[in-house]
């Protein structure tokens, strides 16, 4: 999926704090359900940046020992991929290693945090999450 040009034009100029905040809030809500046993010690005090490379915009996230929070740069680790490839990963149509081999996914900085995050998402059953999405949105993502 590519954003239509006018939307992409706007997206490139938007600040990153609101989506980061929204993601942190969503993760705080999802945490008890998806990761009841995970203490996120490996993420505590560290910043992860998910860069949408075709928009040059991203979200920045940290864990403060209790909750996920939006964070400011610099990040300890940065993932980079196009919006389309992030959606492909979320739908589990391709695995991250495949996209990495094909140079469609980059990872810079602390590789160990990045790998822990990748493996956490792999071990998470995401079906209940998709079920929570409003139908039209889910359909837009092909879920």
């Amino acid at each position: 999926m590519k954003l239509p040009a006018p939307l992409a034009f706007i997206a490139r100029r938007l600040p990153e704090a609101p989506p980061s905040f929204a993601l942190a809030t969503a993760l705080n809500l999802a945490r008890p359900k998806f990761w009841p046993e995970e203490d996120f010690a490996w993420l505590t005090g560290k910043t992860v940046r998910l860069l949408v490379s075709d928009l040059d915009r991203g979200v920045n996230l940290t864990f403060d020992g209790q909750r996920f929070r939006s964070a400011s740069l610099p990040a300890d680790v940065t993932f980079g991929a196009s919006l389309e490839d992030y959606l492909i990963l979320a739908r589990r149509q391709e695995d991250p290693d495949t996209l990495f081999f094909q140079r469609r996914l980059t990872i810079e900085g602390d590789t160990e945090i990045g790998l822990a995050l990748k493996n956490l998402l792999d071990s998470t059953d995401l079906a209940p999450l998709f079920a929570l999405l409003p139908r039209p949105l889910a359909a837009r993502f092909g879920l």
Partner: protein
Amino acid sequence: MTRLPQLICPAGSLPALKTAVDNGADAVYTGFKNATNARNFAGLNFTDTQLAEGIRYAQSRGREVLIAINTFAQAGRLAEWRASIDRAADLGADAIILADMGLLAYAHKTHPQLKLHLSVQGSATNFEAINLAHECFGIRRAVLPRVLTLPQVEYVIKNTPVEIETFGFGSLCVMAEGRCILSSYATGQSPNTHGVCSPAAFVRWDNQGKIMNARLNGILIDRFDEGEPAGYPTLCKGRFAVQGETYYALEEPVSLNVLSILPELIRIGVTAIKVEGRQRSPAYVSEVTKTLRAALDTAGDEGYAVKPEWSTALDKVSEGHQQTLGAYSRPWK
């Protein structure tokens, strides 16, 4: 009717295990979250709760779960490895995969009902070694290192009562399995001691414009031009300057793919075909399991041929530039 080999698929997580079972794996191999297995990566592998659920899921569908405890116990830390064997037995694993002779002896004595497989890390490449492990520890199966030609595999099978498992698909390693300490030169850690080569904490990728550098503990081990396929950041698959030429001096980043010789593997009596990749995601497990299942189901038929869509599917998820028959085919021999 020809007896088909079992399809053994990798799982580093519960969703991957379920995916493997759903797509036709006969058995799934797994590991604990510690240094007792050769894929000891941050966040990968199973807690006891997850493994118990995975074993229930597989066994209730008539499939098996194998647990790899295939690194070598470190001096002073033997209790960790023994405890993992005890946990595997308690959880009801169908078999455990071991390499260390001391651990084989412990498992054989402590859990006589537990099936033992000799891991590829055990590095047994001849029938004498396999038969000795059979006599001493009662191993039921041996996983052959990826260094033997097809006639050599056949010769081993003819001379042992032990079931033989061979690799069918996945990333290749430097072919010194069970003996490799290459990554120790850069990181002080190696697969057989810490369960991981190129531990993530030592890996850094940095991008200079469109060029990507791969570093292991600060040492530049590869550089990828724009659009050039990347591989895992292991020393054996790095490019090095040797006598004025920079190239893959030790090992090309290629993937093993035995689809074209499946009928041969069946004919010589291979018991099980193993897929590499516990570090990979459920998406990989799904694609590879589905494809190998389809191929295996027809490989016993006359006129079997590799379907283009199978090759496309496997090509997509492969590490490196190409697929190979590896050591199986050595026409010059």
